[in-house]
């Protein structure tokens, strides 16, 4: 008898298709790339400039790390909020959004790799 009972709480992915705009998802993807890249750029800048390192020292025991990471997180969250608001009702070309986000993500991986950062800084 239980087999006949309608399963109201089952959510079936095979039939449900989202017809909503993809702006919110695009904003999340791109902003994650922006935040990651900001982290890489700030890490290299703090490593290469004593002035930036001093400016990024928000909390003395951690050195510039606290400033670099806090600023990157701020960039990420602000860009996410800004893009989500701007793209809320829009449908974007996800492939283009992905491409830009992947490039930013690849840059962040390169910039956080010390030998590459040293190469950029001529160390």
């Amino acid at each position, binding site marked *: 008898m239980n087999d006949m009972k309608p*399963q109201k*709480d*089952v*959510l*079936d*992915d*095979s039939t*449900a*298709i*989202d*017809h*909503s705009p*993809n702006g*919110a*998802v695009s904003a*999340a*993807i791109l*902003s*994650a790339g922006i*935040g*990651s890249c900001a*982290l*890489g750029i700030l*890490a290299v800048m703090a490593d290469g400039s004593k002035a930036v390192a001093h400016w990024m020292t928000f*909390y003395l*025991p*951690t*050195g510039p*790390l*606290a400033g*670099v*990471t806090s600023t*990157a*997180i701020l960039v*990420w969250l602000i860009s996410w909020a800004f893009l989500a608001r701007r793209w809320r009702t829009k449908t974007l070309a*996800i*492939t283009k*959004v*992905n491409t830009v*986000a*992947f490039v930013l*993500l690849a840059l*962040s*991986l390169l910039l*956080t*790799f*010390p*030998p590459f950062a040293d190469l950029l800084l001529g160390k």
Partner: protein
Amino acid sequence: MEITVRAFASDIHGMLFGGFFLMAIFGVVVELFRSAHVEEPSKLTARGYSLERLYLIVTAGLGWVAVLLGAYIVYPWYRAIPPAGVTNLAGYPQHLLMASPLTTGWHGLGMEWKEHISWLAPIAMTMVAYVLTKHRLAMKKYPQIRTAVLVFALVALVSASVAGFFGAMIDSNAPVKGGTTIHLVRGNL
């Protein structure tokens, strides 16, 4: 059996939060690969989706706790500057590593890489958790979203792996220790 407060905090950071974060991301990556190649799309109950959401939120949360604990609690102990005249560098891990050409790379490459790349993991995992909890059906209409989620999840896995590997290696060469000693169990001789 005893452990110092600093060693305990370091272990909690790396082995509890960091370790579980790494394992949880691996689970997300496996599930993303699996779900991309199923013939029959999955059917979960409402409770199943709730548990899945909880798993994703906890995964991202583990990552944030791991990096915050590492950066603001353990890292200051790691980079503590020894007072002038101190020759025993056991309580100053960064300086201990940099005192020998055989170990300086663990700081110059290991810690310098780990301290920044580790932050990419919770950022990426937060995005992955957000998309999978709030917009999972969008992946059906836009398969590119699944690609983006998978790429970011893989980057989170790589970043957390790099941080975990170097954290373990650095700790084995110059462990963070010191502070009050916690007596866990007193053994019998």
